[in-house]
Every structure is written in structure tokens, then in C-alpha cells.
């Protein structure tokens, strides 16, 4: 039983160390992707003609295998975490840019007209009206980007043990210890589910203004946000 968590020494990490590393390698790219996607999406909203080419480019980037990225990047960033995180960042754009653009565009015309008529400047209007209303769409995009990023980190194992939990898959083969593969897959899946649930919770907390699905039973009062969050990924 202990074999599941007996991490081979070549990985230079404990089980929890690997989890920390995995989360860092998966989440930092999504964060970087969000930082890139926000201004990019804003440009696409303002200049309508820009959206189709941007969409095209992000999709093409997504089609490039990570291995090909690594081959190119190793010359510059070496066998490092950065080499893993750069492709992941770019991959996240394919989900995040459309999510933000659609979210911002979904703000009703009347709301925008009202904001303009009340004397909101373009920047203030974007930050105080459009972005908050786009939060549900943005978080929906973040959920997809995060979960896919968590699963993709594993390929980092190909460039010298930079795959965090994914390294366990390689070690499972090297040392003929299949239980390590089980640990890797199950832990990665649980991480993905937990982070996803966390994002749903964040959304619920950020958007008290969204109509909640009211429970059909009249006796049930305000639903507990945490319970709602855990139920939500099933949607």
C-alpha cells in the first residue's frame, strides 16, 4: 500500500511536493493566459475585424503539439519549468479569448447605452460594467482552461522530469511500478476536480446577482453556496 506514495528519489520531491509543483506548472500558465487574454479580447471587442484572425491564430497554436513547442523552446529556455509553461499559456488562449469576448459582448445593449448615457467613460465602462457582467462567461472559460492545463502538465516529463505528477507515469515504466501510474492519474484527476469546484465557488461568490436555480421544493431556503459549488461541475 505504501508503494503508491513511495516516490522514487530521482524526482527529488515528496508526494505533496509533486502536487505543489503540478499546481504551479498548471495554474501559472492559466493566470498568464488570462493576463494576455484580457487586453487581447478587449481589442477584439473594439475592433470587430480583429476577432476572426485572432481566433484563427489561437486555434492554430492549439493545434501545434507540445512536443514541437518543447523542441523549439529548449534552445532558449532549456529543460526548465518555463519551457513547459509557455505552451500551456498559449494553449489557454484558445479558450479564454472567446470566453471573454463572448462574455463582454453578451452585455445587453440597453445596459451599455445606459452606462454611456450616465457618463461612464470607455475604460470605466469596461472595468465597472462589462467585465463584471462577463464574469460568469470568463470563469466558465477559466474552468476549461484550468482543467486542461492540469492534465497537460504531465507531458513535461518528456523534457527531463518537468511533468510534476506526470513524472510518476514515466517512473512507473522505468521501475515497473504500475501503482505509481495509478497515483499519478488519480491525483491529477482529483486536483482537476477540486480546482474546478473552487472556481465555481469563486463564481458564486463573485456573482450574487445571478439568478440561482430555485429549488423545486418550497421548504428549501437559500442554498448553501458550497453545496451548490460541488453540485455545479455536473452541469
Amino acid at each position: 500500500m505504501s508503494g503508491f506514495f513511495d516516490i522514487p528519489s530521482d524526482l527529488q520531491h515528496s508526494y505533496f511536493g509533486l502536487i505543489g509543483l503540478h499546481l504551479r506548472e498548471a495554474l501559472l500558465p492559466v493566470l498568464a493566459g488570462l493576463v494576455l487574454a484580457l487586453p487581447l479580447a478587449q481589442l477584439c471587442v473594439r475592433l470587430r475585424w480583429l476577432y476572426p484572425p485572432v481566433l484563427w491564430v489561437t486555434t492554430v497554436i492549439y493545434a501545434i503539439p507540445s512536443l514541437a513547442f518543447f523542441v523549439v523552446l529548449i534552445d532558449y529556455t532549456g529543460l526548465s519549468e518555463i519551457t513547459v509553461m509557455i505552451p500551456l499559456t498559449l494553449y489557454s488562449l484558445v479558450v479564454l479569448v472567446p470566453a471573454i469576448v463572448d462574455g463582454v459582448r453578451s452585455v445587453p445593449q440597453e445596459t451599455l447605452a445606459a452606462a454611456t448615457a450616465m457618463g461612464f467613460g470607455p475604460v470605466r465602462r469596461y472595468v465597472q460594467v462589462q467585465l463584471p457582467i462577463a464574469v460568469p462567461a470568463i470563469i466558465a472559460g477559466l474552468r476549461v482552461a484550468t482543467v486542461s492545463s492540469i492534465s497537460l502538465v504531465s507531458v513535461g516529463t518528456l523534457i527531463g522530469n518537468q511533468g510534476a505528477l506526470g513524472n510518476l507515469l514515466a517512473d512507473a515504466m522505468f521501475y515497473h511500478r504500475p501503482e505509481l501510474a495509478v497515483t499519478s492519474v488519480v491525483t491529477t484527476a482529483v486536483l482537476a476536480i477540486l480546482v474546478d469546484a473552487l472556481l465555481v465557488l469563486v463564481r458564486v461568490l463573485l456573482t450574487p446577482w445571478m439568478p440561482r436555480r430555485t429549488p423545486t421544493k418550497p421548504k428549501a431556503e437559500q442554498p448553501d453556496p458550497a453545496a451548490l459549488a460541488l453540485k455545479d461541475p455536473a452541469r
Partner: protein
Amino acid sequence: MDSVTKRYPDGTVAVDRLSLEIPDRTITVLVGPSGCGKTTTLRMINRMVEPSEGTILVDGVDVQKQPVNTLRRSMGYVIQNAGLFQHRTIADNIATVPRLLGWSKQKARARAEELMERVGLDSSLAKRYPYQLSGGQQQRVGVARALAADPPVLLMDEPFSAVDPVVRKGLQEELLRIQGELGKTIIFVTHDIDEAIRLGTKVAVMRTGGRLAQFAEPAELLSAPADAFVEDFLGEGRGVRRLSFFPSEGLDLLTEPVVADGATAEQTAAAREASGAPYLLVTDGEGKPLGWSEPGSLPGGSPEELLPYGRPFVAGQDSLRVALDCAVLSPTGWAVAVDGTGRVVGVVSQETIGEAIRGAHAAGRKADGAGRKADVAG
């Protein structure tokens, strides 16, 4: 505050060389079919649309010469479907412009509460979000939000067209009440001519292509449409609708055919003889109407023997239109006039109302001649 003036010729089709002088502290309605440029006109006032030619003056100051956001914050704006910020509470929605103007949170909140009361919203709604409100309530919030910074000018773009007729009527009455209290300069856009006539102190009818067809008071619009387009746009029943503007005050009410419940045969016969009217109105002990007594029958029987009296009108308060409507609806052709408390003050026949209408028209024609010259259409 001086009178609000705007003048602009616009090269494009949207609004074509429109000149209007909008009187201060009144409701001016822009009305016309869709695509007639009424919304564009409204949006040029707060520069959401920039006029290509011409100038718009508010209080003698060119709107082009003011910083655009300062200008907009000095004008309330109400839009169709309210356009509330769905991510903010009702109180925060109302406090938007005060906050933009840099008011303290406390002051803005107090102002929001005050306004909720003014537009008839319960203060318990302050912490709610827009999705929890009905369409009519949302529209009230929209009005409150526009009034928040106490702007002298209120721009309203088809604010009530997305709610059902009953709610709309309530909102219209509320607007007139608020206007009576605050005396804003309101510019109101609608495609509903009845709404225009009900709300407008003056009504500007616009035609497709952004040209002004007629700018006049509602009564004049109904009595003397400038051309076939305006006449057509006003629709059917123009004559009857115009009666709304004639008071029922001067109506010759008859009191003879009114008898109290339990009157003796002699009293009834006397009443019939004195009035010469075929029907007698029977009232209860408090003077409230019970119903019409048919010729030959004695009042005082059970209420089932009486003909229903329909709907009474309030003498002096309701218009001739209401009085005529009551007479038409009444099975006897006679309308029942009551006072403010519902007590019968008299009855009046369709013929008498008809005479009053003819009299009012004759008086109206004389007044028209003077009024027409003041308004410039084109």
C-alpha cells in the same frame, strides 16, 4: 433655468433639419413611426450621437462645448427595458451617477433610499438585484436612477414600451405625479401616440426621414392635424379622444330624475313629471346610486328590478370623454354624475353631452387661431 433650446440640421437621413424649442419644466414628447429619428434626436441631446450639422443649446449653452461625461451626468436617462446594471443592487444602481460625481457612499445611499420612496418602491428592495424585480419595478428603478443626481433634464427613450398595458398606465400616472412634484424638463420618446397625448405638454410628431411633421399641444394635434400623415398617425377616434381635453364642468346636470330609495308613489310621479325623463335614478340613503327605475315601475323594490347604472363619472373632474363613455355604456343612455365621494349630483343624457361637445368645439376653434401662430412646424 432658461428655456431649453435645440436646433440641428443633420445631413444624414436620420434627422433632417429639425428645429424644436423645448419648453422648460414640461414634458415634451417626440413621437413617430420607427425609423423616424426620434431616438437619434434624443441621443443627440446628450451626445451619444453627434449631430453632423447644427447646434443644440441647453440653457443657452451649446452641448458640444461641454465635456461629454459632465454633460451626460447632468441629464437623467431612462431607456427601454430599464437597462439596469444586473450586477449591482437596486440601491447601487440608483446611486450610480451620484457615485460617479464623487458623492460619499453614505450620501449616495441616503439619496437612493429617498428616491425609491419617491418612485413607489419598497425600501426592502434596496439590497435586491435587478433579476428579482418585475419589469414594472425595474422601470421604476430606471426612473429613480435617472433622477438620482437631481438633473434638470430627463431624457426618456421609450421607457414604458416593454411593459404590459396595465403596468404602463400605472407608470405613466406615476411619471405625471413625479413630474408634478419635481418639475423637470422631460423629453420623452415613444411610438405610442396615446402615450404621447396622455403625457405630453407638447407633442412633436416626426415622420420617416427625420422630419418634423407637427409640434403642438395634444388637444391641438387632435383638433387640427397639420397634414394627412399626422392625421393618419393619430389613428381612429380622433374626435372622441379629443374630448379628453374638455372638462365635464359645464355640463347641465339634471337633479329632477333622481329619487331616494323608498320614495312614495307621489314623489316618483312628481319626479317623472318634473323631469320629463323616461327613467328615474334611485339612490340609497347616502345618496349613492342604486340603479335606474323603468317607466311605470315604482322605485323601492328589490335592486334586481332596477337597471344597472353602469359606471358613474366624477362631475367637474372627469373629462367629457368619460362622461360620454358613461352615457354610451349606460342602458338608459343617461350618464350618472357623482361627486368625489360617490354621491349622485345629477344625471345627464347623451343629447346634453352632445350639446356640450359642440359648445366646447366652438370655443376651441376660437382659441386655436391664437395658439397656432405660436408653434412652428417644419
